[in-house]
């Protein structure tokens, strides 16, 4: 039997939702999933307004970005024609509602310089980022949990010191340093740089895809492993001192069963929280790692679009990323419900 632990952070979101959804609301709206979805829509709407406004506050516009300093050679008539083409001669209200209206009808917009649809660009970039995020998360979780178990098995002992030192090192070394070091050393010593080739999806060439994903997944995975390791360690140390663990040993259960089923089972709630957060961030695109390893992911798409002031591309892509983040949060909540019986009861 799995014993509960008190981890407010693990289920406070669900509690909040119940409170918010309670009271005068109709019964069906009181269902946690409906409330959750409602708040997700509000969140996405907020994101859409925020990203729209931030882009307009940033100096420069599409004409300056497309022509660079040569924009100064355009006559007023040319400038006006281009402003009309890019749609920046309209009021902010008109621009926002025109864009959000298109998005609601399933049209994410068009990159005006390249004439490519944002949907097709995102369709090819998102799988790259998702694959990278999944691989990095798997690597980071397995490594992080393993190191966390190792460290917690003897608190303040040698293993703990070693485990914590590794965690601290992984947290301290920035991805761009590790990534650049790997690229430079491996290419210089072994003439090996799989990412110099054209990107291959797993269904095109699994072996090449695996080679192209290895180093970036490793770099990002190390960044994921560090917080997971620290979370695992602290959760395991706390749980090891609980009564139910002593009881389990007292009942004569094997150490492995106590560790896996009772200790790790209960520690999994904060670990899942941490992994969920990390995965969500990775879905936003690891811009620097994607730059170094030339992976055509969503991070690079947004970065390039910001450089080019391609408003529709930035806005719609960020909205897609936000939707993915919201979805991951929702899935994390579902996982809580699966692993924490108290949440189910609420």
């Amino acid at each position: 039997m799995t014993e509960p632990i008190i981890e407010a952070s693990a289920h406070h979101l669900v509690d909040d939702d119940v409170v918010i959804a309670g009271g005068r609301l109709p019964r069906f709206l009181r269902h946690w999933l409906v409330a959750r979805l409602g708040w997700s829509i509000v969140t996405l709407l907020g994101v859409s307004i925020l990203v729209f406004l931030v882009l307009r506050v940033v100096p420069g516009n599409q004409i300056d970005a497309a022509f660079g300093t040569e924009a100064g050679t355009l006559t007023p008539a040319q400038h006006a024609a281009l402003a009309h083409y890019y749609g920046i001669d309209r009021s902010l209200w008109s621009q926002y509602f025109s864009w959000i209206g298109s998005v609601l009808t399933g049209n994410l917009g068009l990159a005006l310089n390249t004439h490519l649809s944002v949907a097709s660009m995102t369709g090819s970039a998102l799988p790259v980022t998702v694959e990278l995020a999944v691989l990095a998360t798997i690597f980071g979780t397995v490594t992080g949990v393993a190191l966390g178990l190792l460290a917690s098995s003897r608190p303040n002992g040698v293993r703990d010191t070693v485990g914590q030192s590794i965690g601290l090192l992984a947290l301290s070394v920035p991805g761009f340093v590790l990534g650049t070091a790997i690229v430079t050393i491996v290419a210089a010593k072994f003439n090996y740089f799989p990412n110099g080739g054209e990107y291959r999806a797993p269904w095109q060439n699994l072996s090449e895809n695996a080679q192209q994903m290895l180093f970036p997944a490793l770099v990002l995975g190390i960044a994921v492993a560090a917080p997971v390791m620290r979370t695992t360690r602290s959760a395991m140390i706390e749980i090891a001192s609980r009564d139910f663990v002593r009881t389990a040993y007292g009942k004569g259960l094997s150490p492995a069963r106590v560790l896996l089923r009772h200790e790790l089972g209960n520690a999994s709630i904060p670990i899942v929280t941490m992994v969920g957060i990390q995965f969500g961030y990775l879905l936003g695109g690891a811009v620097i790692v994607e730059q170094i390893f030339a992976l055509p992911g969503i991070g690079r798409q947004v970065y390039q679009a910001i450089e080019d002031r391609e408003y529709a591309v930035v806005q719609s892509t960020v909205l897609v990323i936000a939707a993915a983040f919201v979805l991951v949060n929702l899935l994390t909540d579902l996982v809580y419900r699966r692993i924490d019986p108290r949440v189910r009861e609420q």
Partner: protein
Amino acid sequence: MRRTRIRRLVLVALCLSLLASSALVGSSSARTTATGGTLVIGRTADVNTLDPQKATAFQAVQTLGLIYGTLVQLDSKLNVVPGLATAWKFTDNSQTLTFTLRSRVKFQTGAAFSSADVAASLNRILNPATGAVSRANLSDIQSISTPNARTVVLHLADPDVPILAALADLNTAIMSAADIQSGSFTTHPNGTGPFAFSSWTPNQSFKLVRNKTYWGGKVPLAGVQFRVIPDETSVVSALKANQIQMGLISDPVVARQVKGGGLKVLPQASLSYHTLMLNDRHAPLDKLYVRLAIQCAINRKQVLGSAALGEGQVTGPITSPAYRSDPNARPCPTPNLAKAKRFMKAAGYPNGGITLHTIVETGEYATAVAEAQSVQAQLAPIGINLDLQTLDSGTYVSRWLAADFDAAIALNGGRVDPDTMYTRYFTSTGNLNKVAGYSSPKLDTLFAQGRATSSVPKRKAIYTQISKTLESQGVWVWMFTAFDYYAISSKVQNFIPMANESLQYLRQTTLG
């Protein structure tokens, strides 16, 4: 007992993690190598438009320059030579320019090329609705006539000799009249150049194939593929791993990493110049002596050394090969701090106390911040403080265009003809004069003379005078021209880099 179990568990978990990693590696023998006659070129950014008349980014200009042709073109020494026109003649006091077009030229889609395509292309540039950047260089065209399929006549409002060099620029590319009508060029470029468009995967690769009907003869390469590798260090890594055969590099530090393994670097002096632009309409830069003090305090060689590892040349205003300025013909050819201090005193600032808000661009080229810091350190002794504002490219361009700066560390593009290079900056009606911050009746007269003169020696004398005026007035601080680096594998042969960064000699390049 418990510890042993835990240790085993941890060991199993770590092994699983490593197994997952090694499964990712798969077979290392699957690494791709260069294919037959396709040259793979790595560069840090992608094409941002397929419209040749609106392309300003180097990547777009380089790529579309292989697809499209122009009436005239440049040879490796930047001399104007025949392109789609085999001959041309200025008549009527340089106010009429007649082109005889090449026969039997076809667009890559198979349609025949004629004078109608030239007229449609030039009219598209002149139409304000297009937003073509080269309109300013062609604004003297009053009308275009096409007496027959092989002849095009440009009727000019004023004598305009430099228009010929302007017509060698990709921004005056000749497009098919039918494509202009249909707008198909925005997704499928179609020109008369040595390579034809094949496919484009944004942020990844741009593929070209040999144009089998190219008027200049058989193109040796079966194709060219541009690959986007955003980091220059990674470009070098891809070159070492033989994933690409040519890498385009701008950072001299990275270029030094290319050595051994049959790789070499072709450095090419660029027409672009690194300068400290001064807004001479902002006090106290409106005082000549303050500007001259800055000229004398700056050690250009030192800036070149610290920012670009000494790889480049100290330059004067004009970098066009035929009209190049003498870098020693300036108030202080070598730095002279005592003289600079005397100028500060004469300007009424014996103790300095001047702060200049200076914009610096990051991200666009590697040396900007180092240049700014070097200049900042050199101006400190005469009491001028550079307040450096490092900005992303979009913000920098926006502030630059609005002339919202006292000084700007800039890398400005050079031109084959000094007229197209500086008329826009330093004539009172130039469309970048607000940014340049300086004009004078003397310069207006000299530039007008340059436009109306066809004799090269006479033009040379005029532009030498212009150069001298710009320097003696301390208008900007022209510092140096740097190198562009073409890192290539030994298989790449017959490639000639060009000062205007064109890759047109890929039309004769072979892969050994």
